[in-house]
């Protein structure tokens, strides 16, 4: 007779893990891993953040629906898997936060690891609350079927949890990382994100400007002590995105990618590049920006051709494809001009090395400009910040006549952020918090083609159907209109 007890050989068990310092580190590393699992950024996050830009265009129906709002809660290609992947990361963070305190190890390191997990949890909730509004707020590890089915927590509660996590992260994270720890979050990352949270809360739909002063303090500390935090504005905009210049001083947070480790590469260049593009991969050509947006940059603005690919020579051939020329798929202006920020000619399909840049130092400066304007109107300080970013890009600088009112200055910021951060996952957040969604839909390329008219429900994505159907505490509590 035999006991029939099971022994797991190729996976680890929670019962005999989380005992050493190495285990604690592995629990935190696992949260980061959630961010670089394909196709989190190249498929889900780009659809949710870039496609709603008024200047996006796509060859593919599945992408277009996020530009023209023809998706719905049942979308299981983008909305559902994104939601699941984010909550998977949150559960990993909760696991680390719950388990690490009991591990016998160096107390400073313990606090640092927990702070790191809290930053990552806050980052994920920050994305969720902006994309979906009220969301289930899990702050404990799921260990049994009894823990599931949390109801939606009001946005204010979610923001409160985010702020609490980020404050703790600010306190316990190191200001700098040694080379072998590069890529992990630091105190600077925490301050940056906390400031962004406050700035976001000041806009739609929270309209709570109570944190703006603190946001400015945080950002000024980063701006003035940038050396201490290891930050700087690079002289050359193009250098930010170069494969041989990763983790440069401009990077505040970037998801690390490497082909040398299985499943740790990105498909960005392959998926968004045109056929046989010089960027690597086959080139699935999912779309890009409109001709009109390309032409909206100052003619001297170097950001235009660093961000977009107007023409290219197909790899392995002598054929030159020019966007909008009428020749081949790339010749059809309806399909969108491909992005050029992600380039890895050595990549095969979806194993690109290019780190996925989430936050950059120029955002510190543009946020300062915006907060200055919100607090004190379009004064010289606000213009100085804004012009510092434009100067670096070789775009014409503004004089103070460019904006007489806070509203006018806000308009400049809105446009500047598109030019500066196109294809860096900011578009939908800026559009929504700045109250620009109606305008974006009325002027948008894909929305006009499709005939979409503004509906307040578009201010939030619907909670995915799979959550509604499986969670009885959420059933009946979909976002209004969806």
């Amino acid at each position, binding site marked *: 007779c*035999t006991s029939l007890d*099971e022994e797991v050989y*190729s996976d680890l068990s929670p019962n005999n893990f989380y005992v050493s310092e190495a285990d604690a580190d592995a629990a935190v590393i696992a949260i980061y891993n*959630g961010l670089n699992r394909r196709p989190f950024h190249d498929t889900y996050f780009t659809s949710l953040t870039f496609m709603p830009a008024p200047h996006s265009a796509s060859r593919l129906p599945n992408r277009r629906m996020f530009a023209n709002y023809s998706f*719905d809660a049942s979308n299981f290609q983008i909305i559902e898997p994104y939601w699941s992947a984010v909550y998977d990361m949150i559960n990993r963070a909760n696991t680390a936060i719950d388990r690490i305190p009991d591990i016998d190890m160096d107390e400073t390191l313990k606090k640092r690891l927990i702070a790191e997990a809290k930053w990552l949890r806050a980052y994920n909730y920050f994305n969720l609350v902006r994309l979906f509004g009220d969301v289930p707020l899990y702050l404990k590890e799921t260990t049994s079927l009894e823990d599931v089915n949390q109801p939606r927590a009001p946005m204010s509660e979610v923001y409160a949890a985010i702020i609490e996590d980020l404050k703790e992260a600010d306190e316990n994270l190191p200001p700098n990382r040694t080379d072998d720890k590069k890529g992990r979050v630091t105190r600077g990352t925490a301050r940056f994100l906390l400031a962004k949270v406050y700035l976001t809360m000041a806009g739609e739909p929270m309209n709570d400007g109570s944190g703006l002063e603190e946001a400015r303090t945080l950002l000024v500390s980063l701006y003035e002590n940038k050396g201490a935090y290891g930050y700087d504005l690079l002289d050359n905009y193009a250098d930010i995105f170069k494969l041989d210049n990763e983790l440069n001083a401009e990077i505040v947070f970037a998801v*690390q990618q*490497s082909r040398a480790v299985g499943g*740790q590469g990105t498909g960005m260049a392959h998926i968004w590049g045109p056929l046989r593009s010089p960027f690597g991969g*086959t080139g699935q050509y999912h779309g890009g920006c409109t001709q009109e947006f390309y032409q909206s940059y100052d003619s001297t603005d170097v950001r235009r051709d660093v961000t977009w690919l107007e023409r290219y020579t197909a790899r392995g051939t002598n054929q030159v494809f020019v966007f909008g020329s009428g020749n081949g798929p790339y010749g059809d202006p309806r399909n969108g001009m491909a992005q050029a920020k992600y380039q890895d000619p050595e990549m095969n399909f979806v194993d690109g090395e290019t780190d996925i840049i989430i936050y950059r130092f120029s955002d510190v400066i543009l946020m300062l400009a915006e907060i200055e304007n919100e607090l004190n109107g379009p004064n010289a300080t606000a213009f100085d910040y804004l012009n510092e970013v434009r100067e670096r890009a070789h775009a014409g600088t503004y004089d103070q006549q460019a904006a007489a009112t806070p509203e006018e200055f806000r308009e400049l910021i809105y446009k500047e952020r598109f030019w500066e951060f196109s294809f860096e996952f900011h578009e939908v957040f800026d559009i929504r918090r700045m109250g620009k969604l109606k305008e974006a839909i009325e002027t948008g390329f894909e929305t006009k083609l*499709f005939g979409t008219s503004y509906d307040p429900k578009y201010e939030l994505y619907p909670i995915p159907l799979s959550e509604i159907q499986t969670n009885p505490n959420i059933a009946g509590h979909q976002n209004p209109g969806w």
Partner: protein
Amino acid sequence: ELQASVFTGPGNEQEIVVSGTVLDPEGKPLIGTSIRVEGTNNGTLTDFDGKFTLSGVKKDAVLIVSYMGYQTQEIAVEGRTEITIAMKEDAQALDEVVVVGYGTQRKSDLTGSVSSVTASDIEKAPAVTINQALQGRAAGVHITSTSAEPGGGSSIRIRGSNSISGSNEPLIVLDGYPLPESGEADGDSYTKQTANPLSFLNPDEIESVEVLKDASATAIYGARGANGVIMITTKGGKIGKTRVTFTSEMTMSSVPDFPALLNGPDFGRIKDEERVSNGNQPRYDGLDGRPHWTDLPTTDWISQILRTGASHRYQLGISGGTKASRYFISANYTKVEGVLKYTDFNRGNIRVNLNNTLSDKVTLRTNINYTRSMSNRSEEGSGIITTPGAIFNAYKANPAAMGGELSETDDENPEFQNPLSLLREQTNETSDENLLINIHAIYDLLPGLKLNLRGGANNKSNRRDIFWPTTTVQGELNNGMAVLSTFQFNDYLVEAFANYNKEFRQHHVDIAGGYSWQQKVARRVNNRVQDFPTDNLGTDGLQLGLLPTVWSTSKVKRELQSYYLRANYNYKRKYFLTLSGRVDGSSVFSENKKYGVFPSAAVAWTVSNENFMKNSFVFSNLKLRTSYGLTGSQAIPPYGSLSQLGVANYIVGGNAVSGVAPSVLGNPDLEWEKTTQVDAGIDMGLFNNRLNITVDAYYKRTDDLLQNYQLSPSAGYTSTMKNIGSLENKGLEVTVSGEIGKKVVWNPNFNISFNRSEILDLGEDGSDIYGPDLARNIVAIPGNVMREGEPYGSFYGYRVTGLIQPSDFDYDGNPSIPLFNNDRGPGHWKFEDVNGDGVVTPDDRVIIGDPNPKFIFGWNNDISYKQFSLNLFFQGSYGNEMINVDRLFIASGRMLNNQLQEWGEKRWTSENQHNDFRWPGGVEQSNMQPNSAIVEDASFIRLKNVSLRYRLQMKPDDFIRNVELYATAHNLLTITNYSGFDPEVGVFGQNNLAPGIDFASYPRARMYQLGVKIGF
């Protein structure tokens, strides 16, 4: 009788010595025939000359003469001392002995529902795998070949599918050894065609196959019985001098007709139409030095990749033995060439079956089989756009690709992959080794009581080698890419059981019971390496590759411990009762739910044995039976009840750092899936059993379905294994067989099976369960759904109501119809707005078809005349539908690949505005969605085999004992309305969630065989 012998006393003077000869129907001596004096233990066996001598026989005694396969005779001695007995072949199937779990039973004593297929049925249409041979042969058994590639897999469903997440394949018991679930090395496949678990078995070595269907028959296999049990018995040696049989066979496989694709000029012309309507410049207008479309060349890529395959089979069998030792030794080599170029299947095996009488009391049965097979494959039906199989590649290839016949480039499409060169250049091998050792010792403890001990091991080792050299597109992009995976399992079995058989005063008792332990450890290794300096070494030199991208190993163990008991009782062979059950303990369930109890009961009444029926002119046999019981399924992967952590590494400072994340949320309440089945049957033999009819009706309900229960994703897990929901299957099976004629004898055998399935309950919220995406990227949408109240695996998608017409738009271009994704292209599919909200969205998807047949049938005909015998076997299916995914690609106007020529003629154009949704048109549709326009009726009737045999007349003492010549044709004729290659495919293999999907599948060949079988 007992009293009589007491009063009569010994009476020595009445005893005599009887000797004689037993002859077979051809007049040759029959060796090893049992002769027993009725009512005594006095008996003997005939010797090499068929002679016997029995002393102490009363003058009025009756001799019982029996030999397996011949009618048992009762011969009255009537004072004779010299008797010649002529045995008659047992034409009455009724007294066949059938193999049931842990024993055998007379067929006429069965209370459960069992179908049998014998060696002679299998021999009539030689097949490479036993699955093919069984197709259509037994009622209630639905075998679908999932790939027509040589040695390809199949799915076997006995009385429908019982499980959604667990396996629905029946348990296979080979010579008493319950085979573990198979499996194969992971390839690069998307659909993961499951390996054929029986491809290691050489059909030539099979003596009989019994299919146990109802709960009474399968309950003895408890937790593995719910999907039915197939008992396979291999041949054994017979007492007598050595017999050698040699078979040599050659097969030509010819390609079925494939519907023509557009030729180069038409393709160029239509492609130009598309360019012009998109506002682009035409390429084939003959102007400015551009070629004219009429001058474009044509390559018929489909015919480039197909061929007539030649196959060979050599089979050597040696058998014979003495009373003490019998042997059957077999060796086989089979090579099958596929109809797709460069694909084949090679198999060699050696089997040794021994039966040794070690002493009066102890018999030892030994079965050893070793098989090695190797196949060159092409992964058809995967639907992966970047690495498609050859057929899909041929659809994709431009027929006008510049540079003539075997162009390596296409200047319109930089991704062009020449379908032929892909088949030629890519290495895609599966090799497999299977060793099965099964030793069974039988100890005769007391009269009627036998103790059995069985020990066995089954080791399988499977290896997949895939290499894309730089001469393929995939290889060029990756500078050579290799996939090397292995899968291996070691399965061990120990069983101890007893059989007790007793007859007293017309009461017959037969009891079997015992203990069993089985353990399986399975291991996988996966490697993928890219960037090779040379193509020379392929998967043999992985270390040359600079970029390993996947490497992983896994080891899992499962264990089963069981106790079982079956008691058969009958009175006067009129009233039968069977009680059986098994207590199974399986490691895969949670700590407190390891054990399950699976009981069953059956009763039967042989009405024809009642006195009032004895003289019935019509009924020679009439039996009523019914059974009820519970069986289970444990066919889920191990560890479902345990929470687990998985690897989740990340890059820090440019180096990989170890990460470990929660991966599985265990369910501490995980337990058995339970199937309750009621069966009622009637067996009828009419006109002296010249006509036999068996009818069975059943109802099956499966509860506590093992499912990947969907959790609210916000919990951090998307699913956990849970017991939830129920489904039912109910059906009717009829088998009719007969014998007609005297000189020309015609034995028809017809079976028909009806099964209806319904998903009853999917849990509290009752949410649908979707099948896998039809194709990885282009049709990344499922085509099947499990939904409460609907049949198993129903088709799901948009309902097409017609084609979009210019008249659907007003003067300003505003549509008067709901649009999908704002696709307003005239000639495109018009989807129904089911919920009436004015737009077509995924919410408008509905059930659009049913992959389940209304009925399936097989009709076998054996016609013999003198030394000729002719076999005709028809097989078919009615009322099942198929999603023909190919049509999304080759009949939709998607000019990124080629289109059917018929589409070119019938498509919607502004000149030919019609509403036939089979032939949409216009510029490429954006909605490549599963929809009702690609659902087709896949009913078919197929003349599966025609076989003509001629047996040469030999003299009994010739060195060559017999010679048989035969010619067979397979798949000669198929009548169907289905427009694809083959109505009988399922590219998702054994994936429960996606039945009835056809997508660029491996073409089924028509085969012609010539063979000779010589016996020495």
